[in-house]
């Protein structure tokens, strides 16, 4: 009896080992290609995901894994070398705790950000000073800036969110924002602004829909063309950072991001502005230059 049980067990172990070997063999042959992981900015995630999928279908055996997690996650992961590419809405130099000199910046797209308000507010144009006064809490009723008699309800994105950093950089210019409610995602912000009378927030152009209203800032409308000429100043580059110069699949994929299929077809479809259409260039310190 005992001998039989032992035999059975040995048989079982052998079978397990064999299947393990075959499995790993299978995997290694299917995985002959490579895969890279990209994490970071949730604003850039839809674009990179779509591009990664298309790249995977065009290049058999190559896999692009795309994850969100926020710009901070993207930058810290790429700094540690844990991933191939880290996505960020802000310059690496702007995040404290990041040693930007090791990172190589690839600016793949431009995103315009616009203030959005609830439709019942009754305001169509605000100056930068008025916008600043609203977000710092000096103005608390829409009546004071030409709207209806409604209390202003601020809706912010989470602290450190790329959209918020960009908006505050160009609107508040160093002033401290009033502490108000914060939301994690743009979708949530849109829903709240759409349903709360007197609400104001900000979001990327691509997220604006019929449920919320945009406003002109200092007479300039939030359009793609105004971003490309920098008449509309609230915009940011979308960065893909690599640790050192990219190699292999990472290099190929970044090249693919700059190709015409992505830049001219996919970007406008998803609401991003191709870097090639920018008539100006803006550096880390906000200085604007016209490239030749």
């Amino acid at each position, binding site marked *: 009896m005992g001998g039989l049980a032992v035999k059975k067990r040995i048989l079982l172990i052998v079978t397990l080992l064999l299947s393990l070997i075959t499995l790993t063999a299978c995997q290694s042959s299917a995985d002959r290609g490579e895969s890279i992981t990209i994490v970071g900015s949730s604003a850039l995630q839809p674009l990179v995901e779509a591009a990664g999928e298309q790249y995977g279908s065009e290049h058999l055996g190559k896999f692009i894994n795309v994850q969100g997690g926020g710009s901070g996650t993207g930058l810290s992961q790429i700094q540690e070398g844990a991933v191939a590419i880290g996505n960020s809405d802000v310059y690496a130099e702007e995040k404290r705790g990041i040693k930007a000199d090791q990172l190589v910046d690839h600016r793949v797209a431009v995103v315009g950000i616009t203030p959005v308000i609830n439709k019942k507010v009754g305001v169509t144009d605000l100056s930068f000073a008025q916008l600043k006064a609203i977000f710092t809490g000096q103005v608390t009723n829409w009546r004071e800036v030409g709207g209806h008699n409604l209390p202003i309800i601020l809706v912010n994105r*989470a602290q450190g969110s790329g959209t918020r950093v960009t908006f505050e950089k160009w609107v508040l210019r160093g002033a401290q924002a009033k*502490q108000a409610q914060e939301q994690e995602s743009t979708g*949530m912000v849109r829903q*709240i602004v759409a349903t709360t009378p007197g609400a104001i927030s900000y979001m990327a152009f691509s997220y604006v829909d019929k449920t919320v209203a945009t406003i002109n800032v200092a007479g300039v409308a939030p359009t793609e063309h105004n971003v490309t000429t920098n008449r509309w100043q609230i915009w940011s580059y979308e960065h893909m950072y690599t640790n050192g110069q990219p190699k292999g699949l990472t290099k190929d994929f970044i090249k693919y991001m700059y190709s015409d299929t992505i830049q001219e077809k996919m970007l406008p479809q998803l609401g991003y502005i191709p870097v090639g259409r920018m008539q100006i260039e803006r550096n880390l310190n906000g200085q604007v230059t016209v490239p030749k």
Partner: protein
Amino acid sequence: MDPIRESLLKVSHQAKLERRGRLLGLFCISLIVLVVAAIFYFVASHGLATFYHDKINLWDFLTKQAWNPGTKDSHGVPAVGALPMIVGSFLVTIFAALVATPFAIGAAIFMTEISPRRGMQILKPVTELLVGIPSVVYGFIGLTVVVPVIRQLFGGTGFGILAGTFVLFVMILPTVTSMSVDALQAVPRYYREASLALGATRWQTIYKVVLRSATPGLLTAIVFGMARAFGEALAVQMVIGNAALMPHNLVSPASTLTSILTMGIGNTIMGSLENNALWSLALILLLMSLVFNLLIRLIGRKGAMKS
């Protein structure tokens, strides 16, 4: 050799099996202990860095009201006052437990004492169904139904402690109810029989005998529900408004430890003050769940001694 002698001297097959089983069990247990210890170490090492490495005063952290780790206040000290979040977490937890307890105990009494058959056939499956609903669904219903209703009734934005309380109340109700049912069912049948034999009415039996002897179990159920409410992140985050402000009333946007934590963690860099401050919040959460656990233990032991 004598087969009997042999079998007595040799370690038997059963004994070997038992030893192997014991080893396996010991291995699993130590793995779990190791994981728990690692989590504690990880959270504590990051959470305490705020105080040792970034030199934040622990008392300031617990009592100041300004939360904006990226900026400095007038004294040049980063604004990391966690009081609004701590207060928010405790308020939603306590309110949710206060609202849920009468409903849960009432339902449990109905299911065990008043109408066991119908209660077990209809109410129990319904409460069990509630347990299985993912928290994002609760949050979404809170956002699309509860928040607008509160906005119309009380003004403001509708986001705040009240909306959070309401969502958490529904979330912890099934947990508290099913644990209360267990507690009531554990009361020996002869307690009830003796009480009725003494001429007590059914209500007197329930109120003076069943509920009294089930008190430790009921308390455990409530504390369990509170622990769940305290740690819930997603659903609360969707309806509370996430403003790191002291709640002035029940309908002004507030925040909890969990909501600030989940929102901020992706936007911070490991090792920076902003990140460490969030880990400190996580440490508070961890310590609080430890407190809830100890409380449950304590109640269990006290109750056991009584009976």
